[in-house]
């Protein structure tokens, strides 16, 4: 799509401009910092941790928190803090990957379908609505059960399949209204091709909006991911936040009051979701400056 160096430079300058806006917008900045912080710390600690998250029996089981094991150990003899850091990294990776896949496919479908219209668009539209009404978790459970042991990439794809529809519907309706706008007409008159118009005129004017939906998709993918893992469906032999919660449930950690075990993953998950939501609120303010100062 980028035909010449000059358009690459345009793109770079617009990205820089975007970064400047992000710095000015406190909500986005704070949200991004929290998320990046959680990821980097977890990644770093999981690299230097003396314990292994999966190997059982390396340490004594069921230890309460201590200096050696800040969050104690689980009934299978593993360090909980190590599990937590490994789990955070994996959960975030799966959620982010699922988000990217779902986002890219919904954007492509919505843009191409919405701009060119015709039968292709009708089919896309119908499928979007079908996927919207079906309760995704029921199907996810079915899929996960059928696939059985899933690896991380497959888990991401499965999650993506059930996270794209809503975004696709919204992108498409945005496209339908944007393509009637004057600047699209003008670009046509200036001899621009369809792909050129989508890439240079329509997508740029949707940027904050796209950001909101990316955050939303990642957030809902992670939510579904942890939910599936909680009930025992998901990647095996790796640890993620949802899988920790699954073990907690298995060993009745909630009713035995093992706060050190089940609470930390819950807190991390909620922090991630709230941060993503704050980011999207900030993006919303960029998109509709009217909202700013209202709250």
């Amino acid at each position, binding site marked *: 799509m980028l035909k010449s160096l*000059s358009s690459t430079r*345009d793109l770079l300058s*617009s990205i820089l401009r975007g970064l400047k806006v992000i710095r000015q917008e406190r909500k986005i900045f704070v949200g991004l910092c929290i998320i990046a912080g959680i990821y980097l710390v977890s990644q770093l600690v999981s690299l230097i941790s003396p314990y292994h998250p999966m190997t059982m029996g390396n340490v004594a089981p069921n230890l309460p928190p201590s200096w050696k094991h800040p969050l104690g150990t689980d009934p299978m003899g593993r360090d909980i803090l190590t599990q937590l850091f490994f789990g955070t990294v994996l959960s975030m990776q799966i959620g982010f990957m699922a988000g990217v896949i779902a986002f890219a496919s919904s954007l492509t479908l919505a843009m191409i379908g919405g701009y060119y219209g015709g039968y292709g668009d009708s089919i896309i539209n119908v499928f979007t609505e079908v996927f919207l009404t079906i309760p995704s978790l029921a199907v996810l459970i079915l899929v996960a059960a059928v696939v059985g042991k899933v690896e991380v990439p497959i888990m991401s794809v499965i999650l993506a399949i059930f996270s794209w529809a809503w975004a696709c519907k919204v992108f498409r309706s945005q496209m339908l209204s944007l393509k009637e*706008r*004057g*600047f699209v*007409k*003008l*670009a*046509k*008159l*200036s*001899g*621009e091709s369809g792909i050129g118009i989508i890439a*240079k*005129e329509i997508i*740029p*004017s949707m*940027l904050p909006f796209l950001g909101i939906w990316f955050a939303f998709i990642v957030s809902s993918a992670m939510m579904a991911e942890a939910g599936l893992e909680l009930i025992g469906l998901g990647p095996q032999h790796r640890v993620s936040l949802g899988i920790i919660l699954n073990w907690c449930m298995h060993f009745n950690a909630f009713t035995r009051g093992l706060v050190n075990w089940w609470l930390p993953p819950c807190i991390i998950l909620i922090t991630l979701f709230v941060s993503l939501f704050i980011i999207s609120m900030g993006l919303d303010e960029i998109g509709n400056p009217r909202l700013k100062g209202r709250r």
Partner: protein
Amino acid sequence: MVAILEAKNMTKVFPLGGLMHKKYVTAVENFSFQIQEDDRKVITLAGESGSGKTTIVNVLLGFIKPTYGEVLFQGKNIWKRKRSEWRSYRKEVQAIFQDPYETLNPFHKINHVLMQPIKNFKLAKSKSEAVKLASEALYSVGLDANDVLDKYPHQLSGGQRQRVMLARVFLIQPKIMLADEPVSMIDVSLRADILKIVQKLQKENNMSCLYITHDLSNAYCISDEIIILYLGSVMEQGDFESIVKNPEHPYVKTLIQSISIPNPRARWKGKVRLQDIEIARLETIVGCKFCNRCLEAMPICGQKRPPLIELEKDRKVACHLYV
């Protein structure tokens, strides 16, 4: 001689929904007109909202396909052209729009809107030539390139934005310019400047201009001919001055009389009749579309659509009074 741009019996019908009883609205009905290569005139296309003038613009610019009839460019139907030929059509038929703010993408600097046609129509060989072209174009509409090229649309005033749009047309040098309500969003005290540029552009670059508007008094200053539409059909067309002085069609008479002259001593005389037809019921009218508001209606007006007949040279009217 082949007309450069011609519309032949152009009709555009839009579906209105309803699966069992599908409803349609005829936005434009049997519209024909042509611009000759050496005309270099300004023709006004006038009508109220719902008269179909926006649809005509969209069809002529190739944004929508007419339901019946055809649009010919240099004698060739534009919808039967190859893809590559579209660009040459775009190069020769350009437009400026009502709301320059809507027409400029807020994401891009002014630079973008001028460079895009230069690149796509290959108007310049090098980057520096392109910048030179853009600067010249901006100069010709009274803007300074250093002032505006690096600005975003919201940093310019309404008048400046419309000037940028005119500079863009100057740059492309088309044969035909469609001006769709170019001054209606601009302050009264500044309108004249834009009209002057439109006139200058048209005269100096040998363009023909189709000036689309609902405001006859602005159009009157710069136009030679006029076509008056009502609910998708031409009511009267011909020399602007003679129609203003001596309108024939009852609708055109009411219209001209209702236009305010800025003089409190020349106030409206008498009263107009107001009656509203719902758009959906419009399709059931078989006779003249103005019939139910017409003070001179005859029995035949409700039964038969009047044809567009030539009264004298350069004057056509669609009314049973003159059949």
